[in-house]
């Protein structure tokens, strides 16, 4: 395709991404190194027959001028990155020096809001992803061996947890887990403890969120692996059977190697999606026990006081996290590209 034709075809989508993705990133970077202006104060001496008093008041004129001349606010460099709400360098050092071992270090560190969110986000990402891969593979293998007539209906019901809006899915489960809901009742009965509530404990809240995450993500890996199973070469399976391989050996030595590219693909997509975990925390009203990076940004942006600088800083740190997470893939793609040249 000629450069000129290409240009006109790509222009609308290019402009959309430039204006609403690229420029906002620049704006977020700028906001993260600026803080809103404080009011300019002015001290005047008022003298009356009883003596002189110094009065401090806001100089509205000067404040307005300052805001107009520097609309972004005061440049503060990386101060916001290092403050208590984000990387908290000073508290970090203090905790580092005072902690006796790695566990007490992590424990004290997780009292800081940013690290608390990082710990949950990473725990969520790296527990949900392997569990959903494994269960998705097992379900795909199972569905692949049941009667063909039943497969359509199984796939229909399997799609639901994924297609349904994450916020709605988590609210529905939250109502059932409520101590007056059916699952809550069941758990109280199983443990014979009428006061047991999943919402009250941090560990149980984390487990609840991870179970939701797995429930929501299984359909994706199941569907992709199921499609992959349809392309496993039949003759390889036949010859394995003749050689006396059992079902388990078939899976380990033939099916999994065949599915490997798909496993990489699903892992990559899931790492990306789980890293942005957010809706379940709102749906489960779990913010007292678990917060995530996306939740921190949302929390700063919302409410009466929109703390844009704080939100912008968390956003940049999150984007850096995503890039670190993606770096192996980006590196590989780049090498492939260079190799091709």
């Amino acid at each position, binding site marked *: 395709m000629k450069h000129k034709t290409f240009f006109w075809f790509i222009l*609308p989508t*290019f402009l959309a991404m430039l204006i609403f993705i690229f420029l906002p990133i620049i704006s977020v970077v700028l906001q993260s190194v600026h803080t809103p202006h404080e009011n300019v104060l002015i001290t005047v001496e008022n003298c009356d027959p009883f003596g002189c008093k110094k009065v401090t008041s806001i100089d509205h004129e000067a404040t307005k001028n300052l805001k107009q001349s520097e609309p972004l606010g005061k440049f503060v460099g990386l101060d916001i990155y290092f403050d208590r709400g984000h990387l908290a360098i000073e508290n970090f050092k203090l905790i580092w020096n005072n902690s006796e071992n790695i566990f007490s270090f992590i424990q004290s560190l997780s009292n800081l809001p940013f690290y608390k969110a990082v710990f949950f986000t990473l725990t969520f990402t790296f527990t949900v992803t392997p569990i959903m891969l494994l269960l998705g593979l097992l379900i795909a293998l199972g569905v692949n061996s049941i009667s063909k007539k039943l497969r359509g209906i199984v796939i229909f019901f399997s799609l*639901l947890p994924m*297609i349904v809006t994450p916020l709605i899915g988590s609210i529905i489960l939250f109502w059932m887990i409520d101590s007056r809901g059916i699952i809550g009742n069941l758990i109280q009965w199983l443990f014979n403890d009428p006061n047991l509530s999943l919402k009250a404990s941090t560990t149980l809240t984390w487990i609840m969120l991870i179970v939701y995450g797995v429930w929501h993500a299984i359909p994706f890996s199941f569907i992709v692996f199921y*499609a992959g199973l349809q392309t496993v070469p039949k003759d390889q399976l036949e010859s394995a059977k003749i050689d006396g391989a059992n079902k388990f050996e078939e899976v380990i030595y033939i099916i999994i190697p065949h599915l490997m590219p798909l496993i990489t693909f699903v892992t990559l997509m899931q790492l990306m999606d789980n890293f942005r975990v957010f809706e379940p925390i709102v749906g489960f009203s779990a913010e007292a026990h678990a917060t995530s990076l996306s939740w921190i940004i949302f929390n700063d*942006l919302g409410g009466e006081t929109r703390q844009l600088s704080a939100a912008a800083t968390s956003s940049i740190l999150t984007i850096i996290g995503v890039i670190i997470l993606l770096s192996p893939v980006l590196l590989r793609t780049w090498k492939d590209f260079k190799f091709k040249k």
Partner: protein
Amino acid sequence: MNKTSSNRFSILIYLFIIIWVFLASFPFFWTFWGSFKVELDFFSISNWYNAVTGKNTFDTYKSQFTGAGYEGAWVQEEFWRSFVNSAIVCFFVVLTSLTIGTLGAYALSRSNYKYTFWLLITALIFRAMPPITLVAGYLPPFFEWNIWGILPTTIIVLVSINQPFTLWMLHSFFQNIPKELDESAKVDGCSQFQAFRHVIIPVMWPGVITTGLFSFLLAYNDFAVTAMLLSDENRTMIPKIAAFLGTTYTEGNVMFAVAAVVSATVPLFILVMFFQKKIVSGLTQGAVKG
């Protein structure tokens, strides 16, 4: 393996699948059934079985089912407004995404220059970023120009943040269509755009519909961006439900929220029913192509 143990094995498989199907679908049926009950049945302290029989519902309304929750949500709390807003947002997001997405993805699939590679990689990085990280960048200019809170702004933003995904998906569909098709059209005297419009698009329909389904889901399911960019009266369904939760718990109208949740799930149910094959093919498309 002898016959009995292989039989036992397949029973285990069926059992496993039945458990999964139950886990995947039961919450929806339970909530759907419960949405026609009163709060004392839906959240029953005395006996969970009340939620099935609707004991308290019968005491209040002389019937085991009541539409009170739906009436409260749709009429009293004006959930229909959010429904209309969602419909408008989804319609325009899908239409715009597909229009600019097909043009862009077609160009990317038919060009071999270095910049196509970099455009696709950039789109991949954009795709990986959580959309909420961009919101801090939207707010100041939107307030400044007084375009915050209205539907058109949100539609354009949703279209743009979904473009990376749309481009990748359509790109892989376009690559399945042989290049000889546009070449022969051009030999017959078509311009590139005419070839695209009259030869490629008719062949591409299945791919376009599948991608359209996914941009619909992205727009319909979005919570973070719509909650931040829409004013209270312009809210779509999902942020409206989130706002319900805060107010209904205090007012004791939990059943309004339950009814609203069920109402927002029904369209998705119907979607899966009609487009199951398309959704499955869309999910596997990116995977199989790598």
